[in-house]
């Protein structure tokens, strides 16, 4: 083949290939998982979310509209400045199209502004702040797994209606803890219950015995723990030690993940009531996915609802690119809204104008050691909370995108 003919053929091939991928920027869809990979939230999100995102890409076939899908990840160390620097570099230099997971509300809110300004997709599974779909909502963001409002309402209303009509709160004394407590207080009152007292513990805190004693003294039927991570674990461990469960008081972790229950152990955690968005042992589909995830993680662990949410969000994102034929952020998220979410994570989930993915939540109770038949067999599902009941009504969040409609 002479040189001129060779050049002609390759130029033609390039044009043909380019034509097929015209709408996919840089001919690659790049997804970045940005989360905590070493700190407090690294077990409930962390590497497990990276594995979940890769599973979604592999299950989708590794390509969308002929363009390869690439995955990168980084540790934001729960610091908004670190997270912002990574996100800016990812978007400006590495041409990342979507930033996924982002636990820790302060970091998520920073990423929200960056992705809004630079028109990139933000699929949040790990963060809790309901402001992400409230005043800070963005047309390029979807909040996937849970938020403080749903956690508070799921547990607050359900327990109050079951007769737990007087509450005492132990709050982690920072923005997240206070928001969780206030949301739950509102839910309890809405359901006809009353709040007997609340105490603010410093954050982080190791010894909760003093606060538990105050809770015990209040005579409240339910003690709500408005904290997370090792604060929750310490509080539950010590509540068991001080016999709160035996004296008839019910303990509830308002934001407790299955990894927390695992680390407390069933002997101590039994009877604890909590709200979660997904449980690995719900049906054959969830079990099969969890088993695959566990194998990729080296075994011995089961995924949290945040991990499953990352898988579901990435899968849905790729479906929307496939349907719309573009990876332009606003168009993709608009297309995501038109497709119902049906996968192992949820059935008939829908994405609202404010970015909230509305799906059913579940109220669960931690099993007794005698009821648990195999590793990670931890929950009895008490009730499925319909998505519309769990999540904040669309018009109550003050999201400008909704007000404009």
């Amino acid at each position, binding site marked *: 083949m002479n040189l001129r003919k060779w050049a002609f053929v390759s130029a033609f091939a390039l044009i043909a290939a380019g034509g097929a991928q015209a709408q996919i920027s840089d001919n690659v869809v790049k997804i970045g998982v940005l989360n905590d990979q070493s700190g407090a939230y690294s077990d409930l999100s962390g590497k497990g979310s990276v594995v979940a995102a890769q599973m979604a890409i592999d299950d989708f076939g590794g390509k969308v509209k002929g363009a390869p899908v690439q995955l990168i990840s980084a540790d934001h160390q729960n610091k908004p400045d670190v997270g912002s620097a990574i996100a800016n570099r990812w978007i400006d230099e590495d041409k990342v199209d979507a930033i996924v997971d982002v636990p820790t509300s302060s970091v998520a809110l920073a990423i929200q502004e960056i992705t809004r300004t630079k028109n990139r997709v933000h699929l949040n599974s790990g963060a809790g702040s309901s402001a992400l779909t409230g005043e800070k909502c963005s047309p390029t963001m979807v909040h996937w797994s849970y938020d403080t409002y749903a956690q508070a309402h799921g547990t607050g209303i359900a327990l109050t209606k079951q007769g737990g009509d007087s509450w005492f709160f132990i709050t982690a004394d920072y923005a997240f803890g206070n928001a969780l407590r206030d949301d739950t207080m509102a839910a309890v009152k809405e359901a006809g219950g009353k709040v007997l007292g609340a105490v603010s513990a410093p954050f982080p805190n190791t010894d909760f*015995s003093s606060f538990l004693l105050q809770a015990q003294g209040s005579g409240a039927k339910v003690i709500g723990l408005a904290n997370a991570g090792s604060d929750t*674990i310490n509080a539950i461990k010590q509540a068991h030690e001080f016999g709160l469960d035996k004296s008839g008081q019910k303990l509830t972790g308002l934001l407790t993940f299955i990894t927390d229950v695992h*680390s407390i152990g069933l*002997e101590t955690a039994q009877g604890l009531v909590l709200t979660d968005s997904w449980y690995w042992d719900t049906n054959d589909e969830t079990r099969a996915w969890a088993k695959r995830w566990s194998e990729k993680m080296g075994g011995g662990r089961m995924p949290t609802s945040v991990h499953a949410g990352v898988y579901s969000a990435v899968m849905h994102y790729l479906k929307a690119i496939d349907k719309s034929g573009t990876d332009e952020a606003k168009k993709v998220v608009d297309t995501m809204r038109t497709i119902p979410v049906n996968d192992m994570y949820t059935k008939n989930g829908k994405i609202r104008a404010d970015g909230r993915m509305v799906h059913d939540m579940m109220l669960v109770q931690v099993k007794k050691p005698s009821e648990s038949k195999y590793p990670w067999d931890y929950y009895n599902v008490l009730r499925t909370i319909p998505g519309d009941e769990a999540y904040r009504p669309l018009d109550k969040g003050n999201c400008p995108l909704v007000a404009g409609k």
Partner: protein
Amino acid sequence: MGIPLPVLFGQLLLGLINGAFYAVLSLGLALIFGLLNIINFAHGAQYMMGAFVAWLMLTMLGIGYWPALVIAPLVVGLFGIAVERTMLRRLAKLDPLYGLLLTFGLALVIEGLFRNFYGVSGQPYAVPSALQGGVNLGFMFLPIYRGFVVVASLAICLGSWLLIEKTKLGALLRAATENPSLVRAFGVNVPLMITATYGFGAALAGLAGVLAAPVYSVNPLMGSDIIIVVFAVVVIGGMGSILGSVLTGFGLGLVEGLTKVFYPQASSTIIFVIMAIVLLVKPAGLFGKAS
């Protein structure tokens, strides 16, 4: 103040229990500083190792709490000895700042390794069956295990104090701190004593870790959560003063307990406020000797 007396008693007792942890931890720290002049920043990591060794023994070998109470401190103590022999010894003639930096770095490495292998969520460790349950004291429900912690801590503190103040070995140790070359001239193996002291201090941290395992979350960061408070206790008590650190440990536990009743938000800062005041008024600490 509107606080019923029984509640106050309960909180004071809880303060005393927390003070017990502070006392055992600060005792080891004060011992190491007093005799070796090393500010042992790895103390928190050694405390965490104590708890983890107990957990590992339970899950991998099926060895329960009581043997762990003896074995885990020994393991941590041996680790301390290895650290002293291989690393700290080389810094003995340098400014104490180098020891501080080395132990701080060590703490970060140890915590990082545990975090890598075991994650951050923590591991379950139950209260030993013989100490489960509690007694109703009238003004509060006292878990038996907490009572045991106070008694055990008092015994440990008293034992260590007697060892150092009342025995020949203790006398030699104290002499070696004052004037190592003179003591060596009497035929005493001073480097061995220093190694043993560091090992003993580390073992005390490990022991506190085992005591803490059933009540606190056993996770790689548990040491760094508590070590700063313990340092404040040692500074308030007077660096290197053994009796001072024990008394201050219990005393500050009480103060913290009271703060939790009257203004809980400040309970994590009250110790540092006291530290600032003590440093202003009596820079050598409450029980320290001005040099």
